[in-house]
């Protein structure tokens, strides 16, 4: 008890020490973006150029938009167009600005029992997996990646149900861990896959279909709805993210010699 | 010192627990001065009577009156339990505790407690955890602690049960001294020898009732009831 009391002031001092000097703002982003490692390249540059410390809340797309809708972050960076537009229509944000895209891939056991590797399109690959009833791990968490996956099942004309379809309700990394453990197929974003370090017996089996492109958009939270949001900082950040410097850094970011993201912001 | 809270008057008090009468009806006066000893066989109600007088038991019937309102007597009476209750602290802190409760500073209370401990022969053990001292020492500690507020009445429930003769003598000496200083002592004992040595008055209990109340000399010379006679004789047989 005495010791706890003695440590309390130290503990409280540690809190005050975390209060920064420069301006800080909060941005909710998807796990796939944060896990790619791109954030660690961009954030220090943003701080250097604009003086803004961007604090990331790394969550699923659903929660990322929810945090914005509750006014708990200043801006949102996600990749799920339909959900974003619904969110904007509800008056939660000012506008939607496309920043960059990466792509999704189909990963699975090296032996590829469903033959996804030789499929012509992403939808065909999905159909092959369903036909083979090969184990498939789904995020199942209402994330942008999950929504993209469901769109492809629809395109393949398959209702994904049954023992082979395992919705884990977790983030990309956790889902990849599960797939590695089960030697199952999984739909992943390329960035998380490349930086994922527990690949076990899994391999990249299908890629390149334009249907797999994954557009990231920047959505500032509405200052009309929440006057406390840091709209000016959000604007500054948007300007930086669409700048030539951002283009250079985003296009130049590589993992294992592969480019992950394609900058495609248009100047206004 | 004249005990201002005495006499204590018991008027037809009864204790019932789980529907069973364990004490009473008992009516008696406890007058100031001297040592009154409760005798009687096991289960005759000695402990219950002492606890009732001290206010530890809820009365099922009857009433109990001090000379002053009961609330004013609380800190002016004390109780020593048959198996001593010691706080998990040092000997000196145990003895000082009643004074700490009264708001005295720790330092002053400890000084007085140390002096009291010296008197009862615990002077060497002041800093010892009270949990680890012997049974006789614990009983002395409980007695010293009970005397700290210089109570006007001190109740003791068989304070010498399970003690060796020497520890018993020590305790008897302390009690005599306290009585001489004006503290009224009311205690129970199984030991007729101890009763003879200490008592001015005897209360003899049987089956929850006081069946004989007499000065000590008269009681031991000529017990009036057959139960008391049997008790004393039984006790005297080897």
């Amino acid at each position, binding site marked *: *008890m*005495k*010791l*706890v*009391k003695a*440590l*309390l002031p*130290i*503990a*409280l001092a*540690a*809190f005050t020490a*975390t209060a920064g000097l420069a301006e*800080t703002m*909060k941005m909710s982003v998807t*796990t796939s973006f944060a*896990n790619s490692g791109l954030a660690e390249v961009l954030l220090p540059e943003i701080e250097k150029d604009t003086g803004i410390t961007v*604090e*990331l*809340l*790394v969550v699923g797309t659903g929660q990322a938009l929810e945090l914005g*809708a*509750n*006014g*708990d972050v200043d801006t949102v960076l996600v990749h799920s167009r339909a959900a974003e537009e619904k969110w904007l229509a509800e008056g939660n944000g000012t506008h939607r600005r496309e920043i960059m895209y990466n792509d999704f891939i189909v990963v699975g056991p090296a032996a590829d029992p469903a033959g996804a590797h030789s499929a012509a399109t992403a939808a065909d690959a999905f159909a092959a997996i369903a036909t083979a009833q090969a184990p498939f791990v789904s995020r199942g968490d209402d994330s942008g990646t999950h929504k993209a996956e469901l769109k492809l099942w629809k395109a393949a004309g398959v209702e994904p149900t049954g023992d082979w379809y395992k919705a884990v309700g977790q*983030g*990309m*990394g*956790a889902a*990849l*861990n599960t797939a*590695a453990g089960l030697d199952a197929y999984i739909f992943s974003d390329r960035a*998380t896959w490349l*930086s*994922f*370090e*527990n*690949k076990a017996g899994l391999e990249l089996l299908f890629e390149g279909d334009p249907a797999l492109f994954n557009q990231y958009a920047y959505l500032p939270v509405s200052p009309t709805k*929440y006057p*406390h949001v840091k709209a000016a900082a959000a604007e500054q950040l948007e300007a930086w993210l669409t700048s030539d410097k951002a283009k250079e850094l985003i296009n130049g970011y590589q993992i294992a010699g592969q480019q992950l993201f394609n900058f495609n912001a248009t100047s206004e | 010192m004249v005990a201002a809270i005495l006499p204590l008057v018991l008027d037809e008090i009864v204790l019932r627990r789980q529907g069973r009468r364990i004490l009473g009806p008992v009516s008696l006066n406890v007058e100031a001065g001297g040592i009154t000893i409760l005798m009687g066989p096991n289960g005759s109600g000695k402990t219950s009577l002492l606890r009732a007088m*001290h206010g*530890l038991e809820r009365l099922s019937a009857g009433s109990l009156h001090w000379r002053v309102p009961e609330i004013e007597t*609380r*800190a002016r009476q*004390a*109780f020593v*339990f048959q198996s001593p*209750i010691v*706080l*998990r*602290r040092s000997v000196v802190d145990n003895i000082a*505790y*009643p004074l700490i*409760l009264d708001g005295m500073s720790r330092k002053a209370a400890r000084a007085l407690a140390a002096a009291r401990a010296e008197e009862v022969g615990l002077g060497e053990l002041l800093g010892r*955890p009270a*949990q*680890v001292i012997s049974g006789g020492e614990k009983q002395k500690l409980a007695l010293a602690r009970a005397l700290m507020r210089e109570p006007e009445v001190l109740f003791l429930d068989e304070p010498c049960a399970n003690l060796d003769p020497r520890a018993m003598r020590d305790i008897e000496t302390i009690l005599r001294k306290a009585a001489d200083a004006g503290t009224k002592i009311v205690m129970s004992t199984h030991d007729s020898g101890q009763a003879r040595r200490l008592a001015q008055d005897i209360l003899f209990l049987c089956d929850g009732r006081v069946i004989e109340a007499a000065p000590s000399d008269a009681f031991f010379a000529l017990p009036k009831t057959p139960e008391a006679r049997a008790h004393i004789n039984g006790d005297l047989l080897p």
Partner: protein
Amino acid sequence: MNDILLGLAEAARRVVTLDPDLVEITRLSMAVTLSATAIASLIGLPLGAWIAVHRFRARRLVIAILNALMGLPPVVVGLFVYVLFSRSGPLGVLGLLFTPTAMVIAQVIIITPIVASIAHQAVRDLWADYHDLLISLHASRWQRIGALLWDGRRALMTASLAGFGRAIGEVGAIMIVGGNIDHSTRVLTTAIALETGKGNFDLALALGFVLIALAVLVNLAIHYGTRTERSSRW
């Protein structure tokens, strides 16, 4: 097995080199958990003692609620605190969401029932010993509680340490209310969850070893600091 060895090696390397990131998140873990433990103890210990000593009408109910709250999933507590402190919530204006303060609040809610419940059991046993004496000495209610808390301090320390143990390893609630923000609200447990998500098992394990070592060190420090070891013969 290989992951575990790698984890141990990684933990050793980061501790030896005083890796700044490790130091930062460890410090915050300690700050949040010790604060929560201190606050939960200030509430839970007297509460447990009060319940042990006093017979009041709702006593059974309070004990039942405490025991039920011990089983409360941290995620639920996290959501509750989030909804409370969200900008659109009733306490949103305080701006406490995604701060260490919010994490402390969540942990206090999680561990206070544990501290109070263990304290209640410990004090109840001591009260059975002390009851007649304290009544006889005419100790007031607060004096009784004071004596029980002081003399029962070793058992109560155990109650506090149980709370500490639960808090330091907690991840569900503080992930939600803290947000696991790098350099701001990232602590050992949320960092472990993050690294596990990235498939970085050796780093996650390394952080896990640091967490265990920390918990052991705090327990030992408090035991020796309050000299409960020496007084264990009491």
